[in-house]
């Protein structure tokens, strides 16, 4: 399937995957993230059951200390 990940087109071999699986595949290893799927916030406790499908728009932010 094709998704948009952080404003870029991306291909994933599976037809659908969970947010947790996407994070693993794409190596998002930071502890603290903010994830949006199609504009909606997905909280940490939903990473395992929130499903990403073809055409979805996914934003992953690494939260980094400093300011």
């Amino acid at each position, binding site marked *: 399937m094709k998704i948009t990940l952080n404003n870029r087109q991306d291909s994933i071999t599976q037809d659908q995957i969970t947010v947790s699986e996407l994070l693993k595949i794409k190596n998002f290893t930071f502890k*603290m*993230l*903010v994830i949006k799927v199609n504009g909606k*916030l997905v909280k940490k406790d939903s990473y395992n059951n929130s499903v990403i499908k073809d055409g979805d728009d996914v*934003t992953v*932010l*690494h*939260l*980094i*200390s400093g300011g």
Partner: protein
Amino acid sequence: MSKDFLSKTNIMTFEEIKSELKNYTIGIAGAGGLGSNCAVALARVGIRKLIICDFDVVSESNLNRQYFFRDQIGEKKVIALKENIQRIDPEVDIITEDIKLNENNIVDIYKDCDIIVEAFDLAEMKQMLIETCLTKLPEKPIVLGLGMAGFGNSNSIQFRQSENLYICGDEKSEIADNNPPLAPRVGIVANMQANTVLEILLGKK
């Protein structure tokens, strides 16, 4: 937001810019390196109302990047910053809250702002603000500062937009004892946040 709004911002005089900006209120969440420098930049160009929150006091270690002076060490940051901005322009209306922001008070304090500038230092606080706003103030533009520790590598600092989240920073450099936040890169990101605020507001025309 459409792409062609960018072109409009480049054909305004400073008088026109000021007269447009005076109608807006900007929330600044945190008065450290990002918040103090961003607030000053916004006040200089014509933002007339700021709502600034921070619970901290000015310390010596802040002076390597934050818009405070040595004789303000020990003062509440929100009070010191208000003083400094009003020395630049006494007409700026500055509402200060000496408070630690959380899931509940963010909404009350910032709901009437046109834009919120996220200017915290800790990742946990950044996450809390973003999640709270996406949940409770879903239409509000949030301008984030993410990743600016160290020095050099100016081109790593970038801007991107994800709907109403506007992200400024390299999204990589985490602060550490051997990678401190310093005036130049913190200033770049703080001013990039201010610049983004202008782009959003002036693009509305």
